[in-house]
């Protein structure tokens, strides 16, 4: 597959919790090699969309194709194989608390591959360096890490199998501005070197400006607008206008 081809296609997605409809006929296409940012007000179902694409929640209607394949239709065994082709960073890293950082990174190696311990140790060390953690972090347990370090360690685990798609749920929430900026650079860097497609749910305007190729706005139970930052700035939709022209947006934009 080449860059620019659709890698995630969502068609006519409907999700609800009881009577509460979250998405109604939601369509979204993500192209290979791009960084797409999902924005929307609280409760518009950004995280639900992410979880639905990942197969953690069943859609009530509609079709989701990832890598051109309908994963929901696949037998369990086969789906597992494809799930290894993406990496997910959950909000607080979701590291396994009983394992050290290095062991966390090695979980997918142990589970899916047959590698020597020496090679696994080396790869864990490379991933740890890659996400900008100090080598000493390898032997620490998640409870001994700060929030920013946990996110980086979570990212290292998400990158363990060199995924094609990286899903990020609020990657910069709770980080200090320096840490958040470093995280933006890291994502940009990884996209360049590894050719990743990045699907990012975020509220951080700086991140949107710094890293995203396209932005999709969730509102009124669907994607109302998708395009570049410039498209967002031109939009006349009230919420989009307020979001991208508010005081914080102006400040973030002025810095660019």
């Amino acid at each position, binding site marked *: 597959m080449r860059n620019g081809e659709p890698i995630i296609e969502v068609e006519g997605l409907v999700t609800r919790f009881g009577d509460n409809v979250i998405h109604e006929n939601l369509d979204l296409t993500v192209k290979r090699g791009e960084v797409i940012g999902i924005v929307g007000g609280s409760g518009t179902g950004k995280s639900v969309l992410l979880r639905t694409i990942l197969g953690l929640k069943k859609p009530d209607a509609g079709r989701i194709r990832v890598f051109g394949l309908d994963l929901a239709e696949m037998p369990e065994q086969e789906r597992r194989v*494809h799930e290894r082709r993406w990496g997910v960073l959950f909000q607080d890293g979701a590291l396994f608390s009983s394992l050290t950082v290095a062991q966390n990174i090695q979980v997918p190696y142990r589970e899916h591959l047959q590698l020597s311990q020496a090679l696994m140790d080396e790869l864990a060390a490379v991933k740890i360096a890659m996400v900008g953690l100090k080598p000493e972090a390898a032997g620490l347990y998640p409870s001994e890490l700060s929030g920013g370090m946990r996110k980086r360690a979570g990212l290292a685990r998400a990158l363990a199998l060199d995924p094609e798609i990286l899903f990020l749920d609020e990657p910069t929430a709770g980080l200090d501005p320096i840490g958040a900026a470093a995280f933006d650079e890291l994502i940009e860097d990884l996209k360049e070197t590894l050719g990743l497609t990045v699907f990012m749910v975020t509220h951080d305007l700086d991140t949107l400006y710094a890293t995203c190729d396209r932005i999709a706005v969730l509102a009124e139970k669907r994607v109302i607008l998708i395009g570049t930052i410039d498209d967002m700035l031109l939009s006349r939709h009230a919420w989009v206008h307020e979001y991208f022209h508010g005081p914080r947006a102006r400040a973030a934009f002025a810095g660019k």
Partner: protein
Amino acid sequence: MACRGPGRRAKWPRRQVEARGGDGLAGIRNSAGREAGAAPRASCETGVDGQTLHIVAAGDWSIVHLDPVDRQLRALLAAPPAARRAEIDFAAIDRFDTAGACVLARTAALLRDRGLTVDLKNMSEAQRILIDKIDAGGIPEPVRHLSEPLYIQVTARVGEAVRAIGEEAMGMLGFVGAVVTTIGRTIVHPRRLRVVPFMHHMEKAGFDALPLVCLLTFLIGAVVAQQGAVQLRQFGAEVFTVNLIAIIFLREVGLLLTAIIVAGRSGSAFTAEIGSMKMREEIDAMRTLGLDPMDMLVVPRVLALIVALPLLTFVANIMGLIGGGVVAQIMLDMSPGVYIQRVQEAVGFWTFGVGIVKAPFMAATIALVGCRAGMSVTGSAESVGAQTTRSVVRSIFLVIVLDALFAMFFTAVDI
């Protein structure tokens, strides 16, 4: 299977390994449908040509198929051939990821360490970026899992355990002191007592435990009576079943059973409630608002349990006696009237008194252990679980130890 460029063939003596993963791994790419016409497995040809060590990498150098070539390259470096230069040829690599880059970058770095000049030939732009990225971080020291020799581990664990016991004992003593002073202040200023939480915990730890306590003590009473009747019948002394059941229940079993049930039910609940508040920083929030968590959380629970446990014990005693009475009726044909009369003859006030006097002490122990474990929860949800387990184990242990101490005391004072 390995890609061998025709031009590179047979110029030097060659050792070659092709990676053959297990079937499970072989299935990954095929079913994954990555790149039609699947790339060949990773392979690596090495050979020495005069002063030059040639390493030709070919095929799929992604993590899935990497292990055999990694072993091969490690073996090569363990016994390096005599050479001044090394050439690593990337031309025939079809797929490449950080893992492949890591193996080749490490090989190159180690060869450089041995004084060889290393050439990386025919790299694509993407491969160069990856190799640079890994080189930039330096080839990190692999993560070592240090483990001490066994005798040091054993000594260390024993020492750690002893130290922990000492620390826990000191901590508990401090906690008991703090609770006692807070209760003292509450007695001086009765308005400090939080009446609503006190009643709430009375209900939860006492009233709500009634069905369970009643059922269990009834059953145990029946079982003890039945076993006693069977054994005593052998001596023709089955009438003494009543003495057995009355004394054993009123003095020991009624209280012990109740205390153990309450430790499992309420002691653990105290730890979990206070622990999750501690975890969510609610307790710190209380302090910043000028509220004393001792007043708010600990004292109501301790006092509630001190009141509730004797009441529960009383009910438990009655239920145990009723259980025994039912068995007496069935097995010994003893009517309830006779049973009650025989119970009256068998027990004096202190038979009952001994049991009930112990109850407040047990209650205080359970509540203090539970609250203290809750207070020692640290940040993670895992520690709430660990402390809850610890609180239950510790309070049951202490309840039984306390009971043994009381038994010695009452023997000494002849009650």
